[in-house]
């Protein structure tokens, strides 16, 4: 399956990051990041906490501002122009570690909100779309409940469906399974694998190395705000080059 999926990668560039730098105050969080993502590519970013992997993902849809270098998403250059930012955000879906569903709205309302207000989709059409994606993540029966009534795994699947309702061309995942119980991690990963098989361009910051092996066509290792190593998963896990990567892998795969 992984082989078949890898063939879907096209030459078209989805995300192009060049010489990007970011500071928090005087702290240099991201240093000289260069990364090009092909359409259909699935990239897993790993690294110790504080290495800047989450910040990198959040820079791509301008949740965090970068101070130097350029980020281009689907041919749109990310600048301080609000119109460009809104355009990129409506084409890039994002899932958060803590799901960030809207607790005052029902599941269905969570899903239809952005299509109705941003895409100006008629309400009925938006609801059909929402039910379609809820079926896809296998929880259509929860449509009229509120986020607080769902388990963590279900909430994360709703969050994925909420992003998909905007029919994004790229999906960003910021530690999507870190806040979940082991039993629920699988149901979320299954949903993500399904997405990957459909050829969605994905960037995922995660500690799930099994997922990286199975789904990614490229694994990126970050440390101290820099990309230290990137390679195909087989090579990356079996034959890591940098000593920092070797140490990291031995620590997380060692038990």
């Amino acid at each position, binding site marked *: 399956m992984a082989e078949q999926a890898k063939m879907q990668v096209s030459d078209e560039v989805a995300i192009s990051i060049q010489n990007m730098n970011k500071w928090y105050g005087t702290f240099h969080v991201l240093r000289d990041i260069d990364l090009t993502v092909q359409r259909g590519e699935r990239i897993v970013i790993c690294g110790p906490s504080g290495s800047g992997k989450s910040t990198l993902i959040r820079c791509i849809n301008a949740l965090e501002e970068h101070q130097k270098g350029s980020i281009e998403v689907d041919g749109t250059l990310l600048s301080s122009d609000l119109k460009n930012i809104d355009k990129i955000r409506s084409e890039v879906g994002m899932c*958060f570690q803590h799901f*960030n569903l*809207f607790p005052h709205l029902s599941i269905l309302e969570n899903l239809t909100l952005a299509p109705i207000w941003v895409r100006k989709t008629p309400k009925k059409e938006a609801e059909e779309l929402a039910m379609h994606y809820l079926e896809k993540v296998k929880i259509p029966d929860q449509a009229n409940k509120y986020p607080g009534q769902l388990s963590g795994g279900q909430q994360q699947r709703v969050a994925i469906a909420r992003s998909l309702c905007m029919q994004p061309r790229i999906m960003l995942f910021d530690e999507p399974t870190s806040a979940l119980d082991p039993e629920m991690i699988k149901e979320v990963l299954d949903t993500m694998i399904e997405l990957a098989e459909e050829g969605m361009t994905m960037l995922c910051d995660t500690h799930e190395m099994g997922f990286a092996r199975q789904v990614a066509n490229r694994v990126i290792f970050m440390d101290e705000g820099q990309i230290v190593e990137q390679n195909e998963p087989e090579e990356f896990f079996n034959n890591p080059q940098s000593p920092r990567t070797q140490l990291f892998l031995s620590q997380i795969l060692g038990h």
Partner: protein
Amino acid sequence: MSDVSANAVGFVRTETVPQSAPPSNAAGPAKWVKDNLFAGVGNSILTILAFIAIYLILAKIMPWILNGVWDAPTLSACREVLDGATGGCFAVISERWNQLLFGFKYPSDLYWRPALAFAMLFLAAAPVLFFDLPRKLLVFTGLYPFIAFWLIWGGPVYYPIMALVGFVVAFKVFERLEKQNFALALGAGVLGAAIVWYLGTMIGPDDAARKAGSLFAAGLEPVPSRDLGGFMLNMMLGVTCVSLSLPLGIALALGRQSSMPFIKYICVIFIEFIRGVPLITLLFVASVMLSYFFPPGTGVDLFIRVVIMITLFSAAYIAEVIRGGLAALPKGQYEAADSLGLNYAQATRLIILPQALKISIPGIVNIAVGLFKDTTLVSVISMFDIVGMIRGPILASTDWNGVYWELFSFAAVLFFVVCYGISQYSQWLERRLATDHR
């Protein structure tokens, strides 16, 4: 169940223990009394002391209420009827109820007008307070301020209609231009309304037309602001100021969070200044000094000046309460809204405010109740609200000089009914909005 002996380490459960009812001695009224009233020696003593205290209080108050005199022309007549026995002279309330409710100058044959406006208030407030009702009822809510104004103050029907037209023009202009530029649309809307009102006042019916009885000047008999009074005045001030200060407070709270320093500091300075000044000084400013700020000759009504001051005062407090609600929202909510491509106005209206306001309900209600009771402060700037009526015309009259308890108890009951109603509503609202299932 499988046999578990002391030295067997392995254990496998083969059947599930079924759910069963709790034992009978764990429930029932006798158990409640024992647990809550007579749980121990100390607890029993406190219970008995509390019962004695309640008895002593009621033993004093009940004869005063039950033995009260409801029909007497003066205080001395009332005391004669009582003939030394304990009892309240509630006759002052049945004698002067109209003054307590409407003030001493409002024409008594026109009492039906404010009474009707009061009854319609419930109809107008219903769709706002109970949002499950059909949204079309909000049309009446929008018309209500103009109807209530016309009913209470009277005068030609022309003026409230012109005021309404001004608002409609402002809204239409704003709606048209909103897509291009929010600030431009707002300015143009305000300008549009100002033009309508200016022209409307210029060509409005003058005294001559009124005397001639032309259809243009048709309307109700006018009642000037200084003739308003009693509890009616408290209700008018309370309802107007609460409904105006809530939107203003939201705007101030959002402004204080703004990334634009100019807007931010205007809001901060305004809030900090108003909160640092006692309401009573603001009311004196309203009654004495505020007219300096209006163009000479316009003579803005004292009622409006007081409304402006109370509204600004409570808006500053409400802004701080809402800021607390905004601060309580996790940053993830802003990020999720952003990541979906919602713009600032959409994110604020659909995601941020509904949650922040829900958190702020107890604080907002606290301020609304406080504001409503603070409307009695207008009695010190010689407006005859219910407290002003009691301390002024009623206690000063020779008939009723000296009836304090009965009058102030009556005022307290009226305020209690309204404030308790607000409190109950807010508790219902919190339950109704509880969707987080914590």
